[in-house]
């Protein structure tokens, strides 16, 4: 067993489950989602996942300096990429057109400090009309849209191209004693905090947009911005932005007019 990270190749136990998936599909879709995906002209092939347990290194931070911790950013990127790539490989093995309902999670186990499991899972789907819906890179599309969102997106003439993300681990400087004293009892903005949070978010969003650019996407829908401190203490925060890059499908669509309802069950 080597300890060097590699993005190629699934761990050895990954293969045979998928080989058994011939006339059977598995999916974590709810019944609603399952029926909507069928309605959109896709068939679920199998529940796919990728996972990686990753040890993050150490980086020294200066108490009074706001800065990106690039070593930690790199770790968060690498680990998620490993998990995503493995999930995509499973989907490719099933000859899928895409993966819907992707969830990215981070789990902590008690085996050791500074390590965490990064896991990506979703349901691989294939178009029933035989057409290929793979993205520009020839890979199955990935998307964190639910079955409902996927159906709605298809109605509007867009197709998901890929799940895009950007991350930035940032250390926010502590305020010095003089600064703290000078603002006691006053209404003031704390510019160093504001600026640090701004910069970190901008970095994460820019990286996400770059990923979408690589897929020639027309836009990103359903963007979420998550902030987590993981196990680094309160002044070190990971900013993670996630969304689904979409491309025009080319087909001319007329959007159905939504019906308005008032439900009586309140």
């Amino acid at each position, binding site marked *: 067993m080597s300890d060097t990270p590699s993005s190629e190749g699934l761990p050895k136990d990954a293969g045979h489950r998928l080989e058994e998936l011939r006339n059977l599909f598995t999916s974590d879709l709810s019944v609603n989602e399952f*029926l909507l995906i069928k309605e959109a002209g896709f068939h679920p092939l199998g529940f796919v996942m990728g996972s990686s*347990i990753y040890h993050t290194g150490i980086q020294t931070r200066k108490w009074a300096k706001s800065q990106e911790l690039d070593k930690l950013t790199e770790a968060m990127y690498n680990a998620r990429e490993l998990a995503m790539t493995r999930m995509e490989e499973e989907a490719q093995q099933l000859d899928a057109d895409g993966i819907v309902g992707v969830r990215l999670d981070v789990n902590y186990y*008690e085996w050791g400090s500074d*390590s965490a499991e990064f896991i990506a899972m979703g349901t691989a789907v294939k178009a029933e009309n035989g057409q290929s819906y793979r993205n520009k890179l020839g890979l199955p599309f990935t998307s964190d849209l639910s079955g409902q969102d996927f159906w709605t997106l298809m109605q509007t003439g867009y197709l998901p191209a890929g799940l895009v993300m950007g991350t930035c681990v940032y250390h926010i400087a502590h305020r010095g004693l003089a600064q703290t004293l000078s603002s006691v009892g006053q209404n003031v903005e704390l510019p160093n905090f504001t600026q640090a949070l701004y910069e970190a978010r901008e970095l994460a969003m820019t990286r996400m947009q770059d990923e979408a650019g690589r897929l020639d996407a027309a836009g990103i829908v359903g963007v979420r911005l998550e902030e987590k401190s993981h196990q680094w203490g309160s002044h070190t925060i990971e900013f993670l932005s996630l969304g689904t890059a979409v491309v025009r499908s080319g087909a001319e669509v007329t959007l159905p007019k939504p019906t308005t309802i008032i439900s009586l069950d309140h």
Partner: protein
Amino acid sequence: MDDPSSRRNRIRDEVNRLEAGGFIGGPGRTSVTSDLSIDESLVLHAIGWEAVELVCGVSTYSIQGTLWNWGSGEIVSASMAHARALGDAVQKLRSECLGVLGHGVVGVHLEVSVERYLVNAVLVGTAVAPIAGGSPPAVPFVSDLSGRDFALLHQAGWDPVGLAHGASFVYAPRRRAMDTVRQSTQNVELTNYTEALYSAREGAMERMQRRASELGAGGVVGVTVSEGPMEFARHAVRFAAWGTAVRRSGRPAVLPPVELVIDLDDEQRAFDPASLRGSGL
């Protein structure tokens, strides 16, 4: 520790007592106990089915002589105990269902607890049958879908055939002391842990798939996975997966057309994509 078989007998006695008093079930089905909501009962009625009775299945298996923290590979005795406990509970649920002339059980709530020396499985659900009657099938289906989901699938031309489940317990190997020291400042993947988790997941999912194939299913919907560390075994990983195996019924599928609606209620809940993921059992 409450003995499950005596607990089950006690529940059974209670139900018998109520039945004798004419409260539930019995010939003519004067009244029914079920944990279905009013909406679900209505939807079931709309497709010509009704609830018959609340049924349960309980089973406990012991895990034979296992050292939870030292070893490598799969912890076979634990995986087997898990499979047997769940399989047995399903069996009991089925026979209770047949006892009340149900054709299947919907809305099954699964509760599986793993302790150091035993696995305990408790299944509770509502037996349902077509209003038109008819003799129940030899093997009634068991499904963790809600009554609503069952009705929707039924209309779309799919039938549940049973509960597909699988579990696997695997030792997570320790790192060598040298590696731990060397890796303490690095960004690296911990390949041995990754492989242990993979092996647990794949083992469990494979078993689930095999069970679904044995049931003659075309697929498994609503797969729920449960994983995590166990308090008594820090160096072992547990992974369990279950879902409802479904099959095309051959009846013509009538899906009501999908419509876009906008809810005009003021009290909008904040949009959370995770909430669309079904009941999230």
